[in-house]
C-alpha cells in the first residue's frame, strides 16, 4: 500500500462498456484539491486512484477545549477536536503531563480504556471519542493535558495539542492598598504596596494611577502561614509602588491610586486609595497676629502651583 506513495488515498475499480450501451455512471466524492487518475486495467475496466494534494498532511486542526480554571469538586469536560480529512482513525490518547490516562481505539472492544491516575475520577459513561469527563476534580488534577490523535495504517499521521488546567483555590475578600503617607509634594516618590487575598495559583495585581497603568517596583508571592500542601499552596501576591510624582499627577489636587486584582475569569476586584497634593500653606500675614520665629525657620519653602 505504501508503495503507491505518500499521497495515495484509495483506489476504486469500475466496469464500463461503450458499444453495448451500458455505461456505468459513477460518482467520486473528493475533498478540495484532491487529485484523481484513471488507469485502464482491462479492456472494459478502469481504475481510479485518488491522491491527496502534494505536501498536505491528511490529519489537521487538532485542538483541545479545556477549562483554564475550575474549582475543587467540579465536573470537567475535556474536549478534543480533529479533522481526519477522510483518513481512518486509529486512536485518540489523552495525557496528563507525560502519562496516558485515557485512550480510544475504535477497532477494539471495549473501544475506550482508562489508566488509573491517583485522584482522577473519569466518568466512562459520558466519555466519547472526542470528550473525557472528569468528576470531582481535586487540586492534583492541575496540570497540562494533551490530546494525541493518530490515523490508521499506512500513514499513522499524528498530532498532539495540549493546554493547562488549574484546579483553583478561590480568593476570599478584596486586595488591600497601603501607602506611605496621604499627602505628597511634587518630586516626592509615591510609595506603597498592594496585597491580594490568598489564592491558588497566584493572582495578577496591576497598579493604575489616575486610570493609567503604572509599573510595579517589585512583585512577590507569600504563602499562607502553616500551608501543608507544599506543591500547590495558596499564596498572596504583593506588588510594590515607587512612582515619582510630577506636575501632572495632581490635576485636581488629588490622585487616585488603584490596585486591580484578577484571577482568571473567576474574580475581578480592586482597591482604591486617594492621595492629596500638599497645598501651599496660606502665607502668614504680617498684619494679623504675631510671628513665631521658630516655626518660620523650620518651614519648608512652598512651591507655587502653576497651571
Amino acid at each position: 500500500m505504501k508503495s503507491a506513495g505518500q499521497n495515495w488515498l484509495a483506489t476504486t475499480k469500475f466496469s464500463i462498456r461503450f458499444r453495448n450501451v451500458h455505461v456505468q455512471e459513477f460518482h467520486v466524492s473528493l475533498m478540495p484539491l484532491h487529485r484523481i487518475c484513471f488507469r485502464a486495467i482491462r479492456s472494459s475496466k478502469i481504475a481510479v486512484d485518488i491522491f491527496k494534494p502534494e505536501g498536505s498532511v491528511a490529519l489537521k486542526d487538532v485542538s483541545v477545549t479545556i477549562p483554564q480554571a475550575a474549582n475543587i469538586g467540579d465536573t470537567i469536560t475535556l474536549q478534543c477536536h480533529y479533522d481526519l480529512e477522510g483518513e481512518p482513525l486509529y486512536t485518540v490518547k489523552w495525557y496528563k503531563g507525560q502519562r496516558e490516562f485515557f485512550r480510544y481505539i475504535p477497532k477494539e472492544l471495549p473501544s475506550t480504556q482508562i489508566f488509573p491516575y491517583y485522584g482522577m475520577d473519569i466518568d466512562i459513561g459520558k466519555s466519547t471519542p472526542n470528550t473525557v469527563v472528569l468528576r470531582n476534580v481535586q487540586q492534583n488534577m492541575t496540570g497540562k493535558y494533551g490530546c494525541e490523535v493518530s490515523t490508521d495504517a499506512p500513514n499513522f499521521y499524528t498530532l498532539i495539542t495540549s493546554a493547562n488546567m488549574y484546579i483553583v483555590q478561590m480568593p476570599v475578600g478584596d486586595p488591600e492598598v497601603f501607602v506611605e503617607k496621604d499627602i505628597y509634594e511634587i518630586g516626592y516618590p509615591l510609595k506603597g504596596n498592594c496585597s491580594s487575598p490568598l489564592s491558588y495559583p497566584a493572582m495578577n495585581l496591576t497598579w493604575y494611577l489616575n486610570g493609567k497603568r503604572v509599573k510595579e517596583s517589585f512583585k512577590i508571592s507569600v504563602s499562607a502561614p502553616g500551608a501543608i500542601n507544599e506543591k500547590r499552596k495558596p499564596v498572596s501576591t504583593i506588588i510594590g509602588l515607587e512612582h515619582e510624582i510630577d506636575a501632572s499627577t495632581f490635576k485636581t489636587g488629588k490622585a487616585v491610586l488603584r490596585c486591580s486584582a484578577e484571577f482568571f475569569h473567576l474574580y475581578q476586584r480592586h482597591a482604591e486609595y486617594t492621595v492629596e497634593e500638599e497645598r501651599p500653606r496660606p502665607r502668614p500675614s504680617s498684619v494679623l497676629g504675631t510671628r513665631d520665629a521658630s516655626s518660620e525657620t523650620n518651614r519648608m519653602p512652598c512651591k507655587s502651583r502653576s497651571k
Partner: protein
Amino acid sequence: MTLVLLKLIAPQLITHGSVTIVHIEVVAGEAVYLPCDISTQTSNDQVALVLWYREDLGTPIYSVDGRDRDFNLAERWSDENVFSNRAYFMPEKQPAELGVDHIRETDQGVYRCRVDFRIGQTRNSKVNLTVIGEY
C-alpha cells in the same frame, strides 16, 4: 575522536518529567543505534505498535505494526525520504534499538519513539541525535 567514541558508548540519559531524553552524538557516515524501551510492565501484555517520529514531521518515519499479529512478525515500514533502507529495528536488544546506517548530517534532530501496548500505558521516549560532520 576518542571523546566522541566515549560518548557513543555511554549516551547521556536525562529524564525530563517522565519522558526520557537520550543524547547521542555520532560522526557522519557511521551507524547509530537509537534506543527505545519496548519492555512490557506485565507478563500478559504485548507490544502492538512502535512508531518513530522526527519532531518536525507529523508522520512517523519508521513503524513496526504488530497490531493484528505476533510482534515478531510485525510489518515494518521506513520513510523513503528519511532513513529509507538504512534503518532496521532490533526488538531483541535490551533496550530495543533502531539501527540507522550511514548517518547523514541531515539526520540530526530530536526523534520520538512511541510504543503502543495491547494493555499497558503508551510509552514515549526521545533521542536527541547530534551528527558531527567529517572534517
